[in-house]
C-alpha cells in the first residue's frame, strides 16, 4: 500500500474543490420541469442527471413505477407535463414548498442533485481542512483518494508506525488509520481504515462503533467528530471489537449465500464474471463440490443457501474481497469502486454470519 505524495494530494484537493457542485438555495416553486432531463432553475436552463431526477421525484412523492406507468400509457411528453402539473399543485401548498439545496455543476450546466436545506452540506474545502487537521496531527500517510462524479470524495490514510496483532493468529498484523468521506447524502463520515500487513489489503470498517457521521456543521458535531478520532487514535486506530470479529470470522465458515453475494457484488462493480473471480471468491469450485455431493445449488432457495456451509471461512472471503480491491489485478477499477468493495468487505466482517446460528445437534 503506497503512500500518495503530498503534491498529488494537493492536486487532488484542488480538483475535488473545483469539481464540487454549486449549492443553490431555493424551493420547488423555483424549479420548472421543462422535459425529461431538462429543468429551469431560477430561470437558468439546466440538464438534469438521473440522480437529480430521482431526488425530485422523491420530494414530490412520485414513485418510480408510476413514472414508468405514465410514460407507457400517456407517452413521455404528456408524462413530463403531468409531473410538472403535480409539482405546481404541490408547491401552492406551503408545506410542500420547503427550502431545498440544488446541486449544480455550473461549468457544464447540469443539475446533479436536490437535497433538503436542513442538511447542511459540507463543502470539499471544509472537508479537506478537517481531514488535514487529523492527518497532520497523527502523521498519517494518505494511501487512497477517490473523487466521484457528483463531487463526493474519500481519503484513506494509515498510521504506518503503529501496528497490532490479532490474538495469536499467524499473519494477522495490521496498521490502522482512518477513512474519511464526504458526499451530499451521507455528509462527512469517519470510519476505520485497516491495512493487513502480510498482503497490504485495505479494509474500510464502517460498522464499528468508532464510525461517526456528520451531516451538519455545529460545535457539538465537530466536537463529537474530533472525539471519535481521538478515541480511535488512542487505541492506535484499532476499532473496538475488531480483534474479536477477526477471530470469529477466522473460525466461521461462510455460507453459500454469503459467497454468492460477495461474488455478485464484485461482478457488478468490475464487470468480471464468476470464473474470472475464482482467485478471490471460489464460487464455482464451491458449487462443483456441492454438485459432486448431489446438491444442485442453482435449485436452492435463499434460505437454504444461508444454511449451506462452504469450505471457505468468512475471513478468507473478506480477504479475497479486500485483495481484489487493493491490488492491481489487471482489472480496471477506479478508486471509488475499490473503496466500495473495501466497505462491503468491512460490512461482511461485521455482520451476523449465517453459520453463526447453527446448533450442534445431539441427534
Amino acid at each position, binding site marked *: 500500500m503506497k503512500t500518495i505524495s503530498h503534491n498529488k494530494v494537493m492536486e487532488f484537493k484542488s480538483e475535488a474543490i473545483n469539481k464540487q457542485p454549486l449549492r443553490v438555495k431555493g424551493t420547488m416553486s423555483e424549479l420548472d420541469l421543462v422535459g425529461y432531463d431538462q429543468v429551469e432553475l431560477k430561470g437558468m436552463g439546466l440538464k438534469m442527471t438521473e440522480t437529480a431526477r430521482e431526488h425530485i421525484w422523491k420530494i414530490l412523492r412520485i414513485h418510480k413505477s408510476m413514472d414508468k406507468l405514465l410514460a407507457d400509457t400517456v407517452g413521455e411528453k404528456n408524462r413530463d407535463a403531468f409531473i410538472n402539473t403535480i409539482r405546481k399543485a404541490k408547491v401552492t401548498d406551503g408545506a410542500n414548498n420547503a427550502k431545498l439545496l440544488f446541486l449544480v455543476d455550473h461549468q457544464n450546466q447540469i443539475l446533479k442533485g436536490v437535497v433538503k436545506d436542513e442538511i447542511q452540506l*459540507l463543502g470539499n474545502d471544509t472537508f479537506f*481542512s478537517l481531514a488535514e*487537521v487529523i492527518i497532520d*496531527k497523527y502523521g498519517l500517510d494518505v494511501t487512497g483518494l477517490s473523487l466521484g462524479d457528483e463531487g463526493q470524495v474519500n481519503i484513506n490514510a494509515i498510521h504506518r508506525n503503529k501496528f497490532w496483532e490479532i490474538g495469536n493468529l499467524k499473519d494477522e498484523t495490521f496498521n490502522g488509520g482512518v477513512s474519511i468521506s464526504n458526499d451530499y447524502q451521507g455528509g462527512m463520515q469517519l470510519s476505520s481504515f485497516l491495512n493487513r500487513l502480510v498482503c497490504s489489503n485495505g479494509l474500510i470498517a464502517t460498522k464499528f462503533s468508532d464510525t461517526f457521521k456528520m451531516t451538519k*456543521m455545529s*460545535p457539538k458535531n465537530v466536537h463529537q467528530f474530533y472525539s471519535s478520532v481521538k478515541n480511535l487514535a488512542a487505541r492506535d486506530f484499532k476499532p473496538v471489537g475488531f480483534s474479536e470479529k477477526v477471530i470469529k470470522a477466522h473460525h466461521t465458515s461462510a455460507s453459500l449465500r454469503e459467497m454468492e453475494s460477495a461474488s455478485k457484488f464484485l461482478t457488478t462493480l468490475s464487470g468480471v464474471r464468476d470464473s474470472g473471480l475464482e482467485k478471490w471468491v471460489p464460487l464455482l469450485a464451491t458449487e462443483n463440490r456441492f454438485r459432486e455431493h448431489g446438491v444442485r445449488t442453482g435449485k436452492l432457495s435463499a434460505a437454504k443457501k444461508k444454511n449451506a456451509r462452504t469450505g471457505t471461512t468468512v475471513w478468507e472471503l473478506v480477504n479475497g474481497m479486500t485483495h481484489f480491491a487493493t491490488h492491481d489485478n489487471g482489472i480496471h477499477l477506479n478508486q471509488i469502486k475499490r473503496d466500495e468493495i473495501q466497505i462491503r468487505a468491512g460490512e461482511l466482517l461485521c455482520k451476523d454470519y449465517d453459520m453463526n446460528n447453527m446448533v450442534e445437534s445431539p441427534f
Partner: protein
Amino acid sequence: MEIEYSIEDVIEEFEKGNSDFAIFMFRQITSDKKKKKSAQFIDLEKKLANYILACIHEHKIRELDRTMSQKLIEQVDLILEWDPHHYQALNIRGMLYINLDEYERAIEDLSLAIGIELIEDDAYVNRGIVYYEMGDYQNALCDLDLADALSIDDPYVLFCRGNVYYEKKDFLSAFADFYLAFEKGYSDNSMLLKMLLSKYRIGNSVETYSLSEELAATFAALPSLSLSIFHEIRGLSLYDMSCFEDALEQIHMAIASDMDRSSLYYHRGMIFNCLKRNEEALNDFSRALQLDKEYAKAYFGRAICYENKNEKQRAFKDYANAFFYDPKMKKAAESMTELSG
C-alpha cells in the same frame, strides 16, 4: 584471620570520605552481638549516628541528585538499624526518598517520624511536599497547615503552602502565602514569579504592574529565562490595562531574554492584533505555532488574522485546529460553523 574494627576506625573512615568502607566496617562490628550490647558501644553508635546526620545536613538535601540520595539512604539505614525510631533519620530518609521519586516510601518514613515527634514541624512539611508532588493537594494542605501552626509563619512552610494553593489555582491564598514569605525574607526566584503570576491571575493588572515595579530591583539579577517571565507578566498587565504600546515593549524584552517560548509570540501577536498590525500579528502566531504545533490559542489568533485578510479557507482550518487541540474553545467551533455556512 578476621580483622577487628572499632567504632573509632569507622568514624575515621567516614572523615576520610570513605563512607562505603566505613559502612562495611560498621556491619562487621555489629555482627558481634556481645559487643553490640555493651554500654560503650551504644554510646559510640550514637556518636556515629550524630556524625552521619551532621554530614548529611551539610548537604542541601532537597538539591541532591539521585546517586547521592541513594548513597545517603544507605548511611541513614545504618542509623535506623540500631534505632528504628530515630526521628531525624526517618525525616531525612523521607526527604531522600522524595529525591528518588519514591513517594510511597517517603510517606511511610515521614508518617513514622510524625508518630514519634508529633509537635515537630519538619516531617509535616516534608510529607506535605510529598503529597504536593503526588498531586494530592488536600492532604498536602492539611500537613502544611499543621506545619505552619507549629512553626508560626516559617517562610519556607509558607512558600510550600503557596505552591499548593497555586497548583489548586487558588491564586488569592497562594499570593497571601508567597507575599508573607517574601516579607519574612524568603526570596526564591520561582516563588517571586509565582507571586507575581498569582497577583496577575487574581485579575488585578494594575496591582500586578505596581508589584512588578516593587520587585524590579530583585528581578534585575534574574537569569534570562526568569527575566523573560517577569517581562511577560508586566506586558500582560499592561495589555489588560489597554496600554498596548508599553505592553509590546515588555513582550519584546521578554522575547529578547527567551526566544523559544511560544506563549511570548502568542501574546505579542495578540498585542499586534489590538494595534491593528495584522501582518505582524500573523507572523507572531505562525512563529508560536512553529514552536508549539498544538497551541490552540495561537491557531485561534491566526484564524482571526486570516479572516481580517478575507482568507476564509485558511481561517477555517486554523479554527478547526484550535478546536481540535482545545475542545473547550467553543468560539472556534462557532466560527467554523459560520465560515462553512
